[in-house]
């Protein structure tokens, strides 16, 4: 982010920015930065908190009125809800234990399809509460298409054929794996009571669903494959940092 500020300002465009990692702003020294104490992914602090968000953005913009720089200022208030005890969340759907034996392509697909069927009403409910907003749709594939492809990748590995024309298998996998995770996650936050966190959703998705098990299995393989596309995704782009303890390679 700070790099963009350097390039744009050098070309004559005044910039101000939010900084989620203060140390990076200290080192990169962009012209104007507001360091915020929020979680990664939430640069404005919290959802549905317009007053708070406006204060963050206004404070950031007002750095443009300073006479000289670099300016690095701290926004001191924590995000609303950040200090609340958040043990209240539970996924609306109780699954059976995830599949233990990940070796039969048809059974994997069926298990994924069953999870999708159970989650679908909650996904729709969740979407409706946000007036139709959804982040599902990156790959252009249906959840069932994605279930079939993931089951194929687990078993056929580098021989799995990309179902998206013009897109190589590893990128098709990446777009579809992200898509189906977003489908699960949006379903999981359907219940409006209790605030949910990234870690709680992660513990559920990666610890309690067949999808999590399937993706961990693919990651374990991708860490050791010589296939360049999947190899490049393996370390950071399949399993989030806070769930890597579930993988062989960590």
């Amino acid at each position, binding site marked *: 982010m700070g790099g963009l500020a350097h390039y744009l300002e050098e070309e004559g*465009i005044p910039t101000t920015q*939010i900084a989620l990692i203060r140390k990076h702003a200290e080192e990169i020294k962009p012209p104007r930065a507001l360091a915020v104490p929020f979680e990664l992914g939430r640069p404005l602090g919290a959802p549905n908190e317009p007053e708070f968000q406006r204060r963050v953005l206004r404070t950031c913009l007002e750095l443009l009125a300073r006479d000289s720089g670099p300016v690095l200022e701290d926004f001191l208030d924590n995000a609303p809800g950040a200090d609340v005890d958040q043990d209240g969340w539970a996924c609306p759907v109780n699954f059976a234990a995830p599949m233990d034996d990940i070796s039969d392509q048809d059974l994997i697909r069926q298990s994924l399809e069953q999870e999708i069927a159970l989650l679908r009403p909650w996904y729709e409910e969740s979407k409706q509460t946000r007036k139709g907003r959804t982040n599902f749709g990156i790959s252009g594939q249906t959840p069932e298409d994605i279930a079939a492809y993931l089951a194929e990748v687990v078993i056929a590995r580098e021989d799995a054929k990309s179902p998206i024309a013009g897109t190589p298998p590893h990128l098709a996998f990446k777009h579809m794996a992200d898509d189906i995770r977003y489908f699960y996650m949006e379903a999981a936050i359907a219940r409006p009571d209790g605030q949910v966190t990234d870690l709680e959703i992660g513990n559920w998705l990666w610890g309690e669903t067949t999808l999590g098990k399937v993706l961990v299995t693919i990651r374990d393989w991708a860490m050791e494959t010589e296939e360049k596309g999947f190899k490049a995704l393996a370390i950071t782009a399949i399993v989030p940092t806070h769930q890597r303890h579930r993988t062989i390679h960590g």
Partner: protein
Amino acid sequence: MVHVREMPDHLRDALINQELPEYGDTPWVTPKPLNECRVALISTAGLHRREDPPFTPGAGDYRIIPDEYDMDALIMSHVSTNFDRSGFYQDVNTSFPIDRLRELADEGVIGSVAGRHFSFMGATPPTVMEPVARDLAKVLKADNVDAVALVPV
């Protein structure tokens, strides 16, 4: 919350103490008074219109977000698995504060909102973004943008 301070030590260290490119002296352009500035948002959250192609790993390109676009239809295809998305699912303004920017224009804090906003995907090495970013500055000038607010994810 998976706040940076709650990450396992070795992973937090890897994130915070990663090697950063050198940028040299901080450039400085004095903007117009804030209440006269036409402001654009530039996000690195990998946001785009639903009909646009998703970002791919290592991409240094950007997507255009026209101000009149239905922001509730924006999609986030950032490749990183390591930041919260539940906030964005619930409210686009958690990472792309477009409604807040419009309110600040209505209140007269800023002059106006630009006709176009932009999104990169932040996991990309800045050097890959450099030529694109320098070229984007020309686009911003042509759009009569006086200042930009850069919002990471």
